[in-house]
């Protein structure tokens, strides 16, 4: 169980999140929806330990994660696919993937994870010695996801994975989220593409200006007139 309880995050005096509580378990795909500036990225970055919270907690199976140094969070099984991919552009694809597993020690396990990633994205195997910064947007997104999977996560936090991708690749991306979920990994996905996201998620939360506006199952969100008007233009 991954939980966020009464989380508030500020940038200086500017409020980014106020009293957010969400919960998910490893068998779920959970969507976080909302307009630009609603605080979605802040939420996942705080959960990944790279932004400090002002108050509230992020709990993994009941244990608070903020007590850990930020570089220890990934070792607990939470990996981030950040907005804008944020690869190590000057390193090769293979080196990016290996660094994804930096928190692991067992070489044979790292090799097996790498094989899993190459099976998922055969093109990355062909490009393994190419600098990540020279790949196309879609391939870079594959590296970002592959790098996160290399951390052997129990929960994968994906921030705008379809942003900036060609429409044909966006379809692949949503298929991929389903496949990752089928590997037994809980997926928290932040998306602007609400229609596609609501096809694949189990539940969702809607943020508005840093607060929680709405939450519910996929069906409840699809049935909500607020969601339909604001995000689905129906």
């Amino acid at each position, binding site marked *: 169980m991954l939980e966020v309880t009464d989380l508030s995050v500020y940038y200086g005096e500017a409020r980014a999140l106020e009293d957010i509580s969400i919960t998910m378990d490893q068998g779920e795909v959970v969507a976080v929806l909302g307009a630009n500036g609603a605080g979605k990225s802040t939420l996942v970055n705080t959960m*990944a*330990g*790279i932004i400090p919270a002002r108050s509230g907690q992020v709990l993994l199976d009941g244990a608070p994660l903020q007590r850990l*140094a*930020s*570089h*220890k*969070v*990934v*070792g607990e099984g939470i*990996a*981030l696919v*950040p907005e804008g991919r*944020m*690869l*190590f*552009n*000057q*390193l090769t694809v293979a*080196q990016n993937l*290996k*660094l*994804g597993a*930096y*928190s692991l020690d067992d070489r044979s396990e790292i090799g097996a994870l790498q094989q899993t990633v190459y099976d998922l994205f055969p093109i990355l195997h062909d490009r393994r010695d190419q600098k990540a910064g020279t790949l196309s947007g879609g391939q870079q997104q594959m590296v970002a996801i592959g*790098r996160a999977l290399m*951390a052997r996560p129990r929960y994968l936090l994906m921030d705008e994975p379809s942003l900036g991708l060609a429409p044909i690749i966006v379809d692949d991306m949503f298929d991929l989220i389903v496949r990752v979920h089928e590997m037994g990994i809980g997926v928290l996905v932040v998306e602007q593409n609400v229609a596609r996201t609501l096809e694949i998620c189990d539940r969702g939360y809607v943020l508005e200006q840093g607060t929680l506006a709405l939450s519910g199952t996929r069906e409840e969100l699809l049935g909500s007139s607020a969601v339909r008007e604001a995000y689905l233009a129906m």
Partner: protein
Amino acid sequence: MQQWIQALITGLLLGGLYATLSLGFSLTWGLLRTINFAHFGFALLASYVTYELSTVHGFDPLLTLVATVPIGVALSLGLQWFVSKVKLDMFGTLVATFGLLLVLEAAISRYWLQDLRRIPTENNPWLSNVLSVGPYTMPVVQILGLVAAVALCGFSWWLLQRSRAGYAIRASVENPTMARAFGIDATRLGYLIAAISGVSVAIAGSMIGILYALSPASALIWVPVTLAVVLLGGLANPVGVAISATALALAESFTRQFADPSLAQLVALGILVIVLLFKPSGLFRPTVEVSER
């Protein structure tokens, strides 16, 4: 012909010293974003410790590395600790370390005074220990220095380009936040780089103590050539450091042999200015390209 080959040998050996002295400066600038002018103070202190231990206590000058290397490492680690605690930006490190250099110079001139110091010949077997091959001569201690330079630059290259720690260091220079998100503890890796810098600056300093006369002001003599090596060689690029150091030392050696010896010190700066005019990024690429913030 004989003069040419001797100048070539002398230059190659001098290149070893330049590379050893420049490597740490280049690594800390390129990877830790610390422009460490105190580096020259660390080298000077190592030189004086070598002088003191061999002159006053009768140690073999080369054996003084047992003392100078730990001192160099401790000073480099201490500086890295300070820089990361105080969170200095790159310009801040330049100012702070320049201040530290002045402090070290003042401390040295208080203890060893302003006089020119040199290990007496009877305490310094290495000055006369020369390997002769036909008509050519090579000081053995400089051959050892060249071996040390190759080992240090080679190890640094391997570390950065071939080891997991090296990927991690490069990743955390390029994108510190994401590196942390994937479990990379940049602080610990920073100490590793600082330690390598400390080892090489101590070896360079002891070599200088064995080969040259010392005065508290002599730290500054090494600044131009080091800056030239570092800027031409690409920041934190150990291979670039080795090649630039050799090239500049050769140019200096030939100038000394065939032109005016008093110009030799200016050669490095002259080459630096000319290269930067035509190729402002230097001759080699930095190990990590960082967009200046």
